[in-house]
């Protein structure tokens, strides 16, 4: 059996599946249920400073987009940080941590960007026995209007400054949560590292208008006739999150910095993808909010079974394994040639590969052969783009087959070269480096 125990910056949990700071972790009741269901850890819903708590809207807080059969693909929310009293949260955190000593309990914090505020709250949190803190520099709505959340996360200097304060005033590990609402994720990550953060977690939610009510001409969720941008999350954001995680994982300045991966993790497979791209563990929210806490059982068994099947013993065996294979476009091998191939036994004759290729790509798939409906790749036209694979409704029906070196590429009429050659040396590249004569 694979060992999926997780040690993230010294914080131990029985598995790498944490619940992200969000509504599912707002109070003891939910967190206790989560731990009973098997979650390895939780990041408690973000605490604000002492005093009157924030208030939330009392109308709809979520909007969504759906796929077939109304399967939830993306969720957005306009909820703020916890609207419960600080002391209540701290008391419950302490109790839960006592009840569940083997689980990770992290406090997410968002207070004004002044040293005194951070200095004041850190000891209170430390007293709960929490395993670490996560700095919420990501919340894109409401709090950012008040100079917190994403307003901090979008200014690397502020990140560095606040992280430095936290490292100064607490012994707890500091995880800096990054906002994706920025052009280059490496800058805030580098700033957090300069400030001395123990880890970064990402992504927080993405600025979004999830849909518009066409009867009332207002964004959803609509509160009394108006809407505002919310934070987008769920399966739809996973590709964006994976890229940002990988960018940090392969950046020379932040290489090796522990990452807690967040963004659309719904199945064990999603989690494994984050791990191999450099995440030390993952945080989950939307999947739990869609299906309940039980989904962690699928994640635990799926990850463990896959590791067993592949012979990976511990999480360390897989973390970051894909990072060396993430590169810049210019280094991709231009001599690698692939062609689509349709398995006629699996083909159900829907013709979507044909029309996608015919209307929008390279006219490389037949629709009729000898008067009979038949879909087949014309290798002399196929550029190997993979669009047909992606639009085919049948798993594995179309696959990309690479041409062996020495064989003929019927499209170009050239023999496939055995050597690796990329854009940097390509004759069409005006900046190409001269090969040594």
């Amino acid at each position: 059996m694979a060992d999926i125990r997780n040690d993230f910056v010294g914080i131990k949990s029985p598995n790498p599946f944490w619940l992200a700071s969000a509504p599912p972790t707002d109070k003891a009741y939910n967190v206790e249920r989560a731990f009973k269901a098997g979650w390895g850890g939780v990041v408690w819903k973000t605490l604000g400073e002492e005093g009157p708590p924030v208030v939330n809207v009392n109308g709809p807080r979520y909007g969504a987009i759906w796929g077939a059969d109304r399967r939830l693909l993306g969720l957005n929310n306009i909820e703020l940080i916890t609207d419960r009293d600080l002391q209540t949260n701290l008391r419950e955190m302490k109790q839960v941590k006592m009840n569940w000593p083997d689980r990770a309990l992290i406090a997410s914090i968002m207070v004004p960007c002044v040293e005194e505020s951070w200095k004041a709250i850190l000891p209170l949190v430390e007293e709960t026995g929490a395993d670490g803190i996560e700095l919420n520099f990501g919340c894109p709505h409401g709090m950012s209007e008040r100079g917190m959340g994403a307003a901090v996360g979008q200014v690397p200097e502020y990140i560095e400054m606040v992280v430095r304060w936290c490292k100064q005033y607490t012994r707890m590990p500091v995880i800096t949560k990054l906002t994706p609402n920025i052009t280059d994720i490496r800058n805030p990550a580098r700033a957090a590292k300069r400030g001395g953060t123990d880890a970064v977690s990402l992504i927080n939610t993405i600025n979004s208008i999830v849909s518009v009510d066409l009867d009332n001409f207002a964004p959803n969720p609509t509160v009394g006739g108006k809407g505002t941008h919310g934070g987008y999350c769920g399966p739809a954001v996973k590709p964006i999150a994976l890229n940002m995680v990988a960018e940090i994982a392969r950046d020379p300045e932040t290489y090796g910095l522990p990452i807690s991966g967040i963004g659309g993790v719904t199945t064990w497979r999603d989690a494994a993808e984050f791990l191999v791209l450099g995440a030390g563990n993952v945080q989950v929210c939307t999947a739990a909010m869609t299906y309940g806490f039980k989904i962690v059982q699928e994640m635990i068994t799926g990850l463990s079974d896959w590791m067993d099947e592949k012979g990976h013993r511990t999480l360390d065996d897989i973390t970051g394994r894909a990072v060396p294979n993430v590169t810049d476009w210019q280094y991709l091998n231009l001599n690698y040639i692939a062609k689509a191939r349709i398995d006629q036994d699996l083909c159900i004759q829907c013709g979507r590969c044909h029309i996608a290729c015919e209307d929008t790509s390279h006219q490389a798939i037949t629709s009729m052969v000898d008067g009979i409906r038949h879909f087949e790749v014309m290798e002399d036209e196929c550029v190997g783009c993979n669009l047909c694979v992606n639009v085919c409704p049948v798993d594995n029906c179309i696959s990309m087959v690479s041409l062996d070196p020495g064989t003929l590429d019927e499209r170009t009429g050239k023999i496939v070269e055995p050597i690796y050659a990329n854009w940097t040396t390509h004759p069409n590249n005006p900046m190409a480096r001269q090969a040594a004569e």
Partner: protein
Amino acid sequence: MGTTDTGIVAGRLPPAEVEANFADLHAPLTRHEALVESDRCYFCYDAPCMTACPTSIDIPLFIRQISTGNALGAAKTIFDQNILGGMCARVCPTETLCEEACVRNTAEERPVEIGRLQRFATDAAMRENKQFYRRAAPSGKSIGVVGAGPAGLACAHRLAMKGHAVTLYDAREKAGGLNEYGIAAYKAVDDFASREVDYVTAIGGIDIRNGQMLGRDFTLTDLTARHDAVFLGMGLAGVNALMTEGEAAEGVEDAVDFIARLRQSPTKTDIGVGRRIVVIGGGMTAVDAAVQARLLGAEEVTICYRRGKENMNASEFEQDLAAAKGVTIRHWLQPLRIVTGAQGTVTGIELAYTQLVDGRLTTTGETTVIAADQVLKAIGQTFEPMGLEVIGLERGRILTDAEGRTSLDGVWAGGDCILDGEDLTVSAVAQGRDAAESIHRTLMAVASPAIVAVA
């Protein structure tokens, strides 16, 4: 359990049970069901379902419209090709047409439920009497359409759209043809056939004359004199006879008459059925009659067909439906004579066992008798060319070209009465519609001849 008295008896089952028995065969899809089902459509390229549809409805498009919450748009997509899309959604043998062609059959042996989705969309439009078509400016042309069944209605509607004045002659008291008189009641509940006629003719410009029968009340010559063009869509008025002893006995009836009586009865409880019924035939009519007889409380209903299962015209689905309703289907049996009792009423039917010898059907010499107090004949309908004078026929049906033109100038035909008639509502609709387009082209070409360039 109802009465088991021998003889043809009405009220074998309590009225409430009859009412429940004749409820909608396929319940309409709810909005949720329609959304879930519409999500299953792959929006195929050059979709096989569309090719399989005799009226070429753009099925992927209308299903996509349903999935995006545009049921009315979906209805228009359907009606553009098939103005009787509502009835076709109910009676089409989809399992041998669009749904057989659905690629989901290959994928997981479960097609998208195209018929039920089509009903969802057309019901939505008809519920609010959404009329998608307006008459073009009057053309000044008059067209006589004979037969207000699917072919005639489709033809009349398309002609009315073009601005022509249509007179629709029908021999029966009500318009609708087989939709009104001929199909099983549980396929068109709540007076659907009649409501559809109202919906289709609401476009205006269609004058329905009921009780007007070609060959009895007027001739084709009368029509060609009266109108600029004529469309013949009168279907098949005749039925084949058994040509056996005892056929005239009390208790022997043509299945089409039995079904028509049943369809015209609001409660069905006044329709008598035997305790034991034998239905002769192997098509849809045989199944419709047999199943409905069971639903009225007949204790034993047996369909006897002279060939094998694979030769039956009734679809696989219809055969299964019959079996599910407790009808026994027996193959390789051919009627020899009706057995009658003392009062000249039916007491049974004697049948000969049949077999194929060198591809020819012969009797084996063995016979059997099935006890019955009612025998329903469903051995095919025939065309009765009354009042047609010199029109060209072939194999007893009207000969037409691909556009529906008959051998007579100015006379078109479609539906079951033509040689290519397929005994399908949807094919009749396609032929009526296409004939209307041909009529329109012909009349307008005459009305406004092409301008010839001056040399």
